[in-house]
């Protein structure tokens, strides 16, 4: 059995085989593997006696449940109107330069993925960015670079 299959068996053990166990299992896989691979979705479908299309349908509905490979650290910059008006484009620009990737891409060493996100609920403190589960409000271009540098220094 592969690591993914073992992970899913553990998650099924914990959350059960009901239809409503699907969400926590999907989230569990994403938190470990950063995305839902074809193999993972099939294994989940098999365990929960669902069709693979059903699992894919649920997963693809949620922005934070990725179905394409992502890097170890996922950076999301809010693209909604308040953050837009407070220069989110500039933040994205410096991050693209720093990481040498465009929005939607992953660095060659698979350590960083740069994405945009819909409203993160921090309109009063825009522009805001999210690295993994950590929120960074009122970022400036300089601050954004420093935040990412910190992650680069951490050997992960």
């Amino acid at each position, binding site marked *: 059995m592969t690591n993914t299959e073992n992970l899913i068996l553990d998650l099924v053990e914990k959350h059960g085989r009901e239809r409503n166990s699907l969400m926590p299992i999907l989230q569990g896989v994403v938190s470990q593997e950063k995305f839902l691979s074809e193999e993972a979705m099939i294994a989940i479908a098999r365990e929960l006696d669902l069709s*693979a*299309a059903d699992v*894919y349908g649920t997963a693809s*509905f949620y922005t934070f449940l990725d*179905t394409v490979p992502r890097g170890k650290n996922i950076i999301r910059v809010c693209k909604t109107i308040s953050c837009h008006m407070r220069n989110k484009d500039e933040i994205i620009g410096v991050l693209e330069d720093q990481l040498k990737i465009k929005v939607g891409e992953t660095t060659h060493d698979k350590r960083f993925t740069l994405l945009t996100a819909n409203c993160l609920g921090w309109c009063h403190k825009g522009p805001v960015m999210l690295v993994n589960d950590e929120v960074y409000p009122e970022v400036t271009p300089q601050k954004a670079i420093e935040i990412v540098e910190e992650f680069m220094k951490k050997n992960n």
Partner: protein
Amino acid sequence: MVNLKINNIAISVEEGTTVLDAAKRLNFRIPTLCNHPDLSVAGNCRVCVVEIKGARLLAASCATPVSEGMEVFTNSEKVRIARKHVVELLLSEHNSDCTKCFKNGHCELQELASEYRIGDHVFLDLVKSKDKIQDISSPSIVKDNSKCIRCQRCVRTCAELQAVSALAVVHKGNHQSISTFLNKPMNDVVCTNCGQCINRCPTGALTERNYIEEVWNAIYDPKKFVVVETAPATRVALGEDLGIDVGSRVTGKMVSALKKMGFNKVLDTDFTADLTIMEEGTELLTRLKKVIVDKDETVKLPMMTSCSPGWIKFQEHMFPGMLDNLSTCKSPQQMFGALAKTYYADKVNIKAENMVVVSIMPCTAKKFECNRPEMRDSGFKDVDYVLTTRELAMMVKQAGIDFDKLEDDHYDSILGESTGAAVIFGATGGVMEAALRTAYELVTGHEVPFTNLNIKPVRGIEGVKEASIKIKNTVPAWSFLEGVELNVAVAHGLANAKKLMESIEKGETNYHFIEIMGCPGGCIGGGGQPIPTSPEIRRKRTDAIYAEDMGMTLRKSHENPEVTEVYKDYLGAPLGHKSHELLHTHYKARKRY
């Protein structure tokens, strides 16, 4: 009871009735797209909106239950404007290539748009991938996302009626689409090709792969000898697409039309349905003997029917461990093709390579079936093209034939004679009833103990039906069956099939023989039948099938004189060497994931 007013007319209806249904009772038709009588309520298309006095927003009448004192307006100014906008918005994302669309004239969106006189795009044209990316990977079903309005009838059909869920709603907002797993080609995913999604698609997003041009080309080719076979259920439904009332029997007109269109011989799948009963009935009795007398543990019971190719593929995917329970008999369509290109080709002195076999089927899965590599026992592709009832109707129109005015004609011989037992193959329970009529008589020498041979317990629309028949006064050859209670079950629609199979798998049942048809109602409700479908339409077609049976002189398969002749002339005996070669097949386990 709940009292309300619709368009100022008072009405009183049962609690829980929807506004849509209450309006229908007052003969106010409210247009719908996502709503369907066979499916759960979705309420997503919004064309059925109505105004309710005191409510701030318009309400989807299909998803709004009535309440006391409610005042509903189905055609107010606000409603009309909103409804027009909804249709305009749907059209802004719909590839309206109506003139070449297979659903032209049968498209609910088109009908609604013309009802409201909506033409040019009012909103920005947002059709993605216009005139491209049709999924034509499947020999049965064509999926065209540029025509999809995301009403999700197909998704509900595949989940609720068929328990397959090959299609799901994926992504959201303006990215939302109806997709297979990871958007893989239809032919590569767990799809049974049953075509029930096509029957319920309100637009041309899901249609059958059509072979009309190929068939005309064969007819026009002077070197080709084109024979056509017609399935039982087509004769009680074809009329619907040609301006005749639902439930009309049009057997004679259909034969007449096919002859006028230029087919060299018009023959009947009902003939091979009778032949199937001889083979399958003998197979059942042989299995019973092996289990009861020889105690042969390799022989599996219950035996399961194998006529429905949607059901076969479902089992290959979902219950591959029970493939040995399936009867090895080919379906009547494929038995016909195998015999046509061997025995019949010799009879009419035509080389098999010059023969083209076309079958008219109520089914889309038959298109997949005829392409299976196992189905070439004549040395050629046994059945060349499968047309649905709908495709035949289209060809009849193209040929300029006034169907309603046609005189009845008769099938050609040989392979054209049939009995009432064959025609009931078209309704759920029919194969079971036909098999019992023959097997019981073979074993006891007497007719089945039911009035007029009508085995009522296996008929009807219940999802899973059961019956038991006590076998009494056996003839010596079958004396081991004396006193045996033969337990049978019948299921139709794959969701019901799944339930039945699960209970068999768990060992909760004691059946000897089960019949399963992939589509709700059996073949009369097949994925290739005229659109629309509903429980009421399927009931009328079923009544017509049984009326056709009652109208036949011969009503038991073993009394078909042409079947007797084929055995005498060519096949020998049921399950004999030749039969084994031409009329039987094997199955293959497929992945569920």
